[in-house]
């Protein structure tokens, strides 16, 4: 049963508006996986200073490390999780130890403390969002190549490979979620996402 409704009219017009208003970006954007109708919406993030200025671009673009290598809980839990310090140290005991950021990290490790990261991507406390299910649906169940997972992640997290510390690029509000759920057949039941 295909339902095209007022709501979709609205979202279509919003989409059109967004397309018109979007500044023409010249750099190569992440391709959108063909099996997903991407969520629509943009957000101008703030600069959030982190205890260690983690360079996502270096790890993702240059080193070609998969998102889920570090954010390993994403496919197993509702939270993607900040990688445990042991994971960082796994490489950085050897690699780039002379760099100030790494030295700072080593300092933390030796003190037995975790850096206190600032949260950038967040949903309200009354929202139940689970990474696991989204990755299952859009990556594993869709037989999408896992090495390209950043295309899926990017739909909500923006082009992380271009950032150093993470920046919020999508509004992540209910309209954003709702439009995507409708377009991709996600659940429409309130209690699926609200707790």
């Amino acid at each position: 049963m295909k339902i095209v409704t007022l709501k979709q009219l609205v979202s279509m017009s919003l989409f059109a508006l967004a397309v018109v208003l979007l500044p023409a970006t010249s750099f190569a954007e992440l391709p959108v996986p063909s099996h997903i109708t991407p969520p629509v919406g943009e957000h101008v993030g703030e600069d959030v200073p982190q205890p260690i200025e983690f360079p996502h671009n270096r790890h993702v673009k240059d080193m070609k490390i998969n998102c889920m290598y570090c954010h390993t809980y994403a496919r197993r839990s509702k939270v993607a999780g900040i990688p445990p310090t042991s994971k960082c140290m796994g490489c950085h005991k050897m690699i780039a130890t002379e760099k100030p950021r790494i030295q700072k990290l080593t300092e933390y490790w030796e003190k037995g403390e975790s850096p206190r990261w600032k949260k950038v991507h967040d949903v309200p406390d009354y929202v139940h969002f689970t990474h696991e299910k989204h990755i299952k649906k859009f990556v594993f169940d869709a037989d999408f190549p896992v090495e390209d997972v950043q295309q899926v992640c990017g739909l909500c997290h923006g082009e992380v490979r271009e950032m150093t510390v993470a920046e919020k690029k999508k509004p992540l509000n209910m309209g954003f979620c709702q439009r995507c759920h409708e377009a991709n057949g996600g659940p429409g039941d309130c209690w699926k996402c609200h707790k």
Partner: protein
Amino acid sequence: MSLKNILENFSYYRRDAEAGGHHEYEHRFAMAIDLDICTGCNACSTACYAENNLPVVGKERFEAGQAMHWLRVERYWDEIEGDYPEQGAKMIPMMCQQCGAATCEPVCPVAATYHTPDGLNAQVYNRCIGSRYCSNNCPFRVRYFNFWSYYEDSWPEPLRMQLNPDLSVRDKGVMEKCTFCIQRIRNAKDKSQREERPLVDGDIITACAQACPTDAIVFGDTMDPESRVSKAWAKHQIHRGPVTAKKQKADEEIRGYRVFDELNVDPSVMYLERVRDTEV
């Protein structure tokens, strides 16, 4: 387009409870509570406080009738002539009955309460504007309203650390009620999906049922004919849906009953009558 939608699916949109509803239920969670072995010990209620972030309101607010016990163990005395209540007291754990044709749902002005495909009576806290009509229209009076910002003084540090992150802590102005531990249902479903198997009886257990020292509370899915609760419902001749002649109990002496069944709200909680040895 909307017009087309309405016209094409009109009959679908017009199905009501008697016609099986517009819902394709995935589950219909229900309970069977045996009042014969319910001792009234209050473990269920405390477990509910622990599981569902229920605030402790304190003496003054309790006195004002603003307590938040989603599950309360009601105690009634017999209306007896004699000197003593020789058959003891009557205890009944009373929580949201998750009615199939709930009276609270249609009166909410903002649709903050509705029926889920799991057969539950959902309350979406962040949609609620606090008109409190739902509670007024609940014959069981099991909806609780956040009359104050309870969270401010219910959990002084470090009590706050006990709060269950799987569900919201509610601020003032919001209605809330028993959810049949939706967070446990959600987790169990996630787990079964993760393990790629269907949900089976026993995967989900509500906090009250788990705590109950006598296992008087049985929780399960009535759509699963093999579940303990289905069997209990069948054994006690209680059927889903409003009571009609067809659905009446064949043997009136069988213990199962639903409170206020005569109001046709189709509660999801079946109680089993208390038994007393009248010969002693």
